[in-house]
């Protein structure tokens, strides 16, 4: 089974229990305006060019016959300064699983495992489920926006030791305004987590004036009351450095900046009796 990924990160420390190796799936149905992995949005490979250091020599435009460069306006290999890279490569689930499983001895002694993230891993359901099956025996986490059909979501849960799902905005209108989609499917999958009791962590990125409002955090805390498998809620401070990748993809820079995270943001969760941390 083939799938599209754009990165693998070892010793990821924020993606589940123990040291993780995180696989980033490429392509996402949401368009969060603060997205810090913009190279994970499109469902096809993309060139990333460090335009800031480009001397304009033109070698990359001179034409080539490499099969891997077909469909791009530049040659991947020609840059004398090494400024061109490809984001996104098609991988076989069996090969990827075999590569990941070489680290199993590490996870066995450290209590870590594999985390599948993105992009949106649930947007490549067959590949995702097949990969999860092939990773049986290691601790598996999936990081998801929750924007997927509940059938797919439930099938993923059945193959995953821990689900880490985002809940960015409780209000459907604001959700649509800032992510391009309303949150009906996400809330439905949250309901699935409530019913199934599947172990989960619910995460909210802290975007100044958008998700970090008292109103939003209070509403989210309320939605999380009584979810039996909930290990904790996590508030994720926003990383302003993430904006650097936008120009490399030829995109407009992001409009959001980081904001100092404050312990007081946890108050709504404390009031609701929901365990929560500032990550």
């Amino acid at each position, binding site marked *: 089974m083939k799938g599209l990924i754009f990165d*693998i*990160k*070892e*010793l990821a*420390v*924020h993606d589940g229990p*123990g*040291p993780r*190796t995180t696989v980033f799936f490429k392509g996402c149905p949401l368009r969060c305006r603060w997205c810090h992995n913009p190279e994970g949005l499109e469902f096809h490979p993309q060139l990333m060019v460090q335009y800031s250091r480009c001397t304009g020599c033109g*070698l990359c435009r001179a034409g080539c016959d490499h099969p891997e460069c077909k469909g791009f306006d530049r040659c991947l*290999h*020609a*840059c*004398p*300064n*090494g400024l061109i890279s490809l984001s996104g490569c098609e991988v076989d689930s069996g090969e990827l699983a075999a590569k990941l499983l*070489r*680290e199993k*001895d*590490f996870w066995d*002694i*450290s*209590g*870590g495992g594999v985390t599948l993230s993105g992009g949106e891993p649930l947007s490549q359901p067959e590949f995702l489920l097949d990969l999860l099956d092939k990773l049986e025996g290691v601790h598996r986490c999936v990081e998801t926006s929750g924007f997927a059909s509940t059938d797919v979501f439930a099938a993923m849960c059945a193959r995953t030791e821990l689900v880490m799902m985002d809940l960015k905005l409780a209000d459907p209108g604001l959700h649509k305004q800032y992510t391009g989609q309303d949150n009906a499917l996400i809330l439905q999958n949250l309901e699935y987590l409530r019913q199934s009791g599947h172990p989960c962590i619910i995460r909210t990125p802290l975007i100044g004036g958008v998700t970090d409002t008292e109103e939003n955090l209070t509403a989210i805390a309320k939605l999380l009351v009584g979810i039996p498998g909930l290990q904790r809620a996590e508030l994720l401070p926003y990383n302003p450095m993430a904006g650097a990748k936008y120009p490399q993809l030829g995109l407009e820079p992001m409009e959001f900046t980081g904001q100092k995270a404050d312990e007081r943001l946890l108050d709504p969760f404390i009031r609701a009796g929901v365990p929560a941390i500032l990550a």
Partner: protein
Amino acid sequence: MTQRIETMLQNCLAYAHHVHRAPFAGAVDWQKKGLSPVLRSAHRLKALLAAEHPAELTGREILFIRTVTDVPGIFTDAEQADLKQKHFIHELGNLSNICPSYQSVMELGLDEVKNRANQRLDRCRAEQDTEGEDYLTALLMSLEAVYDLCARYRAAAQWAGNTAAADRLANVPYNPPRSFAEALQFFRILHYTCWAEGMYHVGVGRFDQYMWPYLQKDLQSGVLTQDSALELLEEFFLSFNMDSDMYPGVQQGDDGQSMMLGGRTADGKDAFNLLSSLCLTASRELKVIDPKINLRVDKDTPIERYEEGTRLTMEGLGFPQYSNDDIVIPALIEMGYAPEDAVNYTVAACWEFIIPHKGMDIDNIAGVSFSKCIDEAMHESLAKCADFDAFRAEVVKKIVTSCDEIEENVKGLYIYPSPFVSMMMDGCIDNARDVTLGCKYNNYGIHGTGVSTAADTMAAIHKLVFEEKSLTADELIAAIDANFEGYESLRQRLRTEMPKMGNDDDYVDGEAVFLLDAFADAVAGRKNERGGIFRCGTGSAMFYLQHAAETPCTADGRSHGEPFGANYAPSLYAKTGGPVSIVRSFTKPNLARACNGGPLTMEFDSTLFRSEESRSKVAQLVRYFIHSGGHQFQLNAVSAEQLHDAQLHPEQYRRLVVRIWGWSAYFVELDKAYQDHVIARRAYGL
């Protein structure tokens, strides 16, 4: 940290004590009297210690600082030139880079040492052993010089009202210490005198083992609490930093004051104790570059100990450096060290494994540049090689030749005698001979530099010239000879698209396995003139710049002059799979056969250490390295942003510490080439 220590620390960093310093102003008469070298050494020590004056006497428990800044050598310039003609002179010529025994001398007290020396001197006279007579006369003269300075320190401390320190100096160094504080004072006098005698890179050894009985006794009797012990220990740690600016090696900070903690006892038990833990705490609180902390671990070491180590790593000092007893002890036994000695190993100045007070090893005698071997083989033979194995065989020949040259170059070794340090080395009084003539172990160590650059180079040649056949030997050599000028796309391809060590890719990691095996084979069976063997290792020392400067550009895409990675590490520009893949790649070679010392060296972004949770995950990586058969691991917390800013505003970063190759230094005191190298290393982060 108490207020007293904080003040002492600030004064130390402000060099407040430098006010006491002056150059040597006495008569340099030891060079002229027709004395043997060993007696000259004693005369010089006597003159130097006589010129020293007691200083920093109040508010301190542990006395002795250096006040005389420079001392002429024991030989005239002409004599030195002559010695260099006739002998192989290693580095500065002085004794260096070994670890004397503080323990045995403290257990006896210097009065008893003196007795034994006198008795042995009588025997030498009776036997007409004039060489032995010279040595023991020199030792006794050195001891008198130490006694004289100790007496002056005691009187001055008394006069200054520091009766506690004065009282201690009534007992030590003459008799065995009665308390932890006396033991620390005793150590300080011995260590101070080793430096004063001219020895450099004076190792500290397994401090938590030989000092523990003194502390344990004081804790049991209530003389000390854990808190007061820590305060005393922190003052003691600061004493290593008072004079160390007088002891520069290749750069400031390269002073070899290495301390080893943990490990196993003689009967195989876990040796980590409360003092080990207090040492980690003292280093973490003080954040100064000495002593340099090493920690011995093994497969049974609990994760909590790695977590404790990682809390120290977080401070950015590059401490602790870990070594793996499961690999190192059997490797030392295999090299011929007795099992009871191997279990007691420590490190020399950086990471070379040595046996305290038994090893007169010179474990940094030279370095083999793998890249140079490959470059020569490529130019001379690549075009003639029918297949890659044939090329590998040519590279092996060059490694052997390189070892032949080293073996030849180091013949006729002469080390300037060091009678006082010799007293602290096993057997020297009994044999009535200076340790520079030899001790129980007399092995030589050879560094193997730029392993990853070399493995990457081999893999690129294998792939392009022999497998794909997309490049001929002549084309590759033409590009290399042009330093890739006009071949920029080829260079990029070599740099970014060829297999690199650090990706858990057997294709290239296998080349490192091959090169290190070839290195081990090349030194196997060689004997030096002292009856010792040659050991090979994975350390780079300063060769990561020097050998890189001497080596033309390499087929891994490295331009001429671009440095190698520090010690045993991926090349600076290699795209790696990440920390886990690096550990997997670098534990594939048979490191027990290349165990002179030289750690896997990795940088991590300091943000990775901010939370206890993520720190514990880094600790797991260290443990994984040990479980995977790694020999030695050096990890550093860095902030690239801070390093760049420190180059621009050095005045604001006086205390910023970085790890260089086997030692840590204040960043702003380094030459820019060393600063740039730290910045160029890739840091793994969140």
